[in-house]
C-alpha cells in the first residue's frame, strides 16, 4: 500500500509545531500502525533527518503508553483499539492519514507526538488506592464478593490510563479516567472504608491539574480503547454527593 502521512512535528514544549508530510510506498497490511512509524523513522534516520518521537512500549494494548490522534480520533478509527493494536489492513491504498499528539492543556507536548501525562499519576497519588500496608491483610477468601460485583469492578479497573478520554473531550475532562478508579474501589468491600475521602480528594486533584468539567458528551466512552463505560461517571457523581452528605452529617 501507498500511504501519505501528515504528522505533527514539534521540537519541544516551548517551540511551535507544524505538520510535515511523508510518503511511504510499501506499507503491508499486516503491519501495525506503529510498525509503519518504525519504517518511516528508519527512512528518516537514513536520510539524516530527525525521526518522529512517539510513545509506545508494550504494543499489546495494555500499557497505555501509545497515544496518537489519528484522522481526528484518539487511537484512530477502530472501536476499542489502541494505536499499537491498530493494523494497516483497516486503511486503503493511497490514503492520507493525519497524525497528531493528544491535545489537552494538562498534557503538554514533550516532542512531536509525545505528551506529558504525569497529571494522571498525581491524581492516583491523591487517593486512588486502598490504605493497606503490606502484612495487614486477612485471608483472601474471608470476604466473599459477589461475582457480578467483582466483574464490574474488574471492568472499571481495566482502564489503561492512556488519556484518550481527555484528548477526545472538548473540555479536556478526565472524568472517565477518575471515575473508573473511584468506581472500582467503591464497589469492593476493601475500598469502602475510604470511599468518601477518596472521591473528594481525587476530584479536587483533577480540578487542580486543570482538567475541564464533564458536560456529558460521551466522547470519552466512544474513544476509550478499553470501552470503559460512562456509567462510571454516574457512579462517581453519586459517590461525590454521598460524600458531601456524609461530611454535612459530620458537622
Amino acid at each position: 500500500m501507498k500511504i501519505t502521512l501528515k504528522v505533527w512535528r514539534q521540537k519541544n514544549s516551548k517551540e511551535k509545531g507544524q505538520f510535515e508530510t511523508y510518503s511511504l510506498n510499501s506499507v503491508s497490511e499486516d503491519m501495525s500502525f506503529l510498525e509503519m512509524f518504525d519504517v518511516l523513522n528508519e527512512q528518516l534516520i537514513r536520510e539524516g533527518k530527525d525521526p518522529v518521537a512517539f510513545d509506545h512500549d508494550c504494543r499489546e494494548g495494555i500499557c497505555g503508553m501509545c497515544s496518537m490522534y489519528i484522522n481526528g480520533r484518539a487511537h484512530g478509527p477502530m472501536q476499542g483499539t489502541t494505536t499499537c493494536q491498530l493494523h494497516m489492513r483497516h486503511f486503503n491504498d493511497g490514503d492520507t492519514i493525519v497524525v497528531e499528539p493528544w491535545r489537552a492543556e494538562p498534557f503538554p507536548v514533550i516532542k512531536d507526538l509525545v505528551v506529558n501525562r504525569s497529571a494522571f499519576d498525581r491524581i492516583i497519588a491523591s487517593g486512588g488506592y486502598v490504605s493497606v500496608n503490606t502484612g495487614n491483610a486477612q485471608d483472601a477468601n474471608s470476604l466473599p464478593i459477589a461475582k457480578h460485583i467483582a466483574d464490574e469492578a474488574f471492568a472499571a479497573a481495566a482502564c489503561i490510563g492512556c488519556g484518550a478520554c481527555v484528548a477526545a473531550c472538548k473540555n479536556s475532562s478526565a472524568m472517565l479516567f477518575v471515575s473508573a478508579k473511584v468506581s472500582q474501589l467503591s464497589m469492593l468491600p476493601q475500598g469502602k472504608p475510604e470511599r468518601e475521602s477518596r472521591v473528594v480528594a481525587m476530584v479536587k486533584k483533577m480540578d487542580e491539574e486543570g482538567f475541564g468539567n464533564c458536560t456529558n458528551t460521551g466522547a470519552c466512552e466512544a474513544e476509550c480503547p478499553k470501552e470503559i463505560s460512562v456509567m462510571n461517571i454516574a457512579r462517581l457523581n453519586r459517590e461525590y454527593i454521598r460524600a458531601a452528605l456524609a461530611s454535612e452529617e459530620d458537622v
Partner: protein
Amino acid sequence: MSLDAKIPEGPLDQKWIKYRSTIPLVNPANKRNLEVIVVGSGLAGSSAAATLAEMGYKVKVFCFQDSARRAHSIAAQGGINAAKNYQNDGDSVYRLFYDTIKGGDYRAREANVYRLADVSTSIIDQCVAQGVPFAREYGGMLSNRSFGGTQVQRTFYAAGQTGQQLLLGAYSAMMRQVGLNKIQMFSRHEMLDVVMIDGKCRGIIARDLVSGKIERHFGHAVLLCTGGYGNVFYLSTNAMGSNVTASWKAYKRGAYFGNPCFTQIHPTCIPVSGDHQSKLTLMSESLRNDGRIWVPKKQNDERKPTDIPEDERDYYLERRYPAFGNLVPRDVASRAAKERCDAGYGVGKSKMAVYLDFADSINRLGKNVIKERYGNLFEMYEKITGEDPYSTPMRIYPAVHYTMGGLWVDYNLMTTIPGLYALGEANFSDHGANRLGASALMQGLADGYFVIPYTIGAYLADEIRTKSISTDHPAFAAAEEEVTKRLQSFLSINGTQTVESFHKRLGKIMWDKCGMARSEEGLKEAIQQIRTLRQEFYTNIRVPGSAFEYNPELEKAGRVADFIELGELMCIDALQRGESCGGHFREEHQTEDGEALRHDNKYMYVSAWEFKGVEHDPALHKEELNYEVIKPSQRNYK
C-alpha cells in the same frame, strides 16, 4: 571471591521463619535517615518501594516509561500461582515447591524456592486487600485455573489481564507513598550506571530522558528491579523498551551474572507475519486449559484447518505426553512444536506454526464460557491476524518470552556487590532452567512485598552510622563522566546504519544459534559473529540528534550496545553448559526420543560470570546446588 549463597541453617520448612526473626531490626528513627534507590516500577519494584516506604525508609523510584504503571509487568496475562489449596485438590506449599524445582529441571536453589512457595499465599491476601479484582465464582470465592507443568488448580487470575491488575495494585500502594512524600518518583529516567564507593554500591547515575540531563543519586542501598532481557533476541513478547542495561552496568561494576543462557521460549505466541515485525504477542498459556494443539498428519497440507477431518490430525502433545497432554511445561511444548514444523508439518503461510484449537471446548462449554475466560485474548488475536479464533483455530509458534538468568543473588537477594540487590525477573531467580507459568508474577511480588523488606535489614542495620554521601564525591563525578562520554561516542560515530538494524542482526544470530536448540558448533560461530557485529556497531551506527534533548534513538543505542555484549556472554554460557536442561537444549545432549538430557554429575551448579573486560573472556564461578529434600530425576510428563 567465593560464592556464598548465605542459606540459613535448619530444616527446609523452618529456614525462612527462623532466619526472618533473627535479622537485625532498624529502629524507626534510623530508617528515616536511610535512603533506598529502587530502579524499576514493575511488580518487583513497586511492591518493594511501597513496602520499604511504609516501613519508614526514604525511597526514590526510577522507571523509563512516562508512568510507573506502564512497567512491563502490566502485560502479563494468565495468572499468578499460590499454594492456597482453595480448590481442595491436594495443593500445598510443598507441592508448589516441588513443582517449581521439577519444572526448573533441578537447577534452582531449594531454600529460595521453598520460601517462594511459602510466602505465595500471603501475596494473594495482600492483593485482594488492595482491591485487586481477581476472578470469582458465583459463591463469591476466588476462582482458579491450571497452568502448564502442574496437576492442581492454583492459578489466580483476572481475565487475561492478571499482570495489569496486580501491577495497578502495587502501583497504587506505591503512589499512596508518593502522595505521603515518602517516595520520590522519577519517571522518564534511565539508570545508566551504579556508583561504587569503598567497595559498596552507593548510588546511581541516571539520565532524565526528557531534558537529557545526567543526574547523580545517592542511596545507602540500590535495588535493581529492571526486568528481563528477552529483547536480546530482537523479537520477543517483551515490551519494546525492556532491556538489560541496568543489570549490565552492575555486571561491569562487579556483580556476577547468573545462568545468562537460561531463556524461556513460550510455546503459544502469534507467529511472525513479515520483516516489519517489531515484537511478538503472547497468547497466554492458560489457553492450553481449553485449547488443543495439533498439526495435520500429512506434510505440507494446504487444506483449511476446519476441512481437515479429525483422524487426519496429529494432537502431538496428547500423543507424546498422555499424562500432561496439552499442559506440559513450556520448554517441552516449544520443542515439540519446533520438531513438527522442522519435519514439514507446520501450517500457515510461513509453515512455521501449529494450530491451537478451541472447537471442542466451545462445543462442550459454549461460546460464552470461552469468551468469559479468554475474551480479551481472542480479540487481541483477531486484531493482529484478522482471523476469528472462535470459528477457526489459532495459529501459534514459540517465541522468546522470559529470562530465567539474571544477576546472581544470595538468599538475601543481594548481588556480589554489597548494597546492590536484584529483584524480580532481573535476578537469576528461583526458576532454575525453566519457569512454570504464573510463577514470575508470584516471584516478583514475593521478592518485593515479603522478602526484601526483611533481608535488607541485614545490611542496613550496619549502615545506620553512614551519613548520606554527597554526590560531589569523586566516584559520582567519575561515573557521570563515563556515562557522558559514552553517549557522546554513540552520537559521534555518524555511520550509515540504524541502531535498529544492528538489533535485528543480533536477534537473528541469537535466535538461530542460541534459541530453542543450541550446538557447540553454532555457539562458537555465534560468538565470532557477535564480536564482528560489535566492532561494526561502534564504527557504523548513526544516531541522530543530541544528548541534551528527548532522543529515543540515543536510548536505543545504549540498550543495543549492551545487548550485543550480553549476547556474547549468553553464548559463552550456553557453550560451557554441556548438557540439556529446561529451556537450554543442546543438540548433542538428548535422549533417544528427543528429550532434554541432563548431566547432574557435572552441571549441578549455577554458573555465575565475572566481568573481566569487554575484550577478555569472563571468569566462571560455580555455585553448587545441593538437593537435600528433593531427589533429582529425569523430568517425566508422560
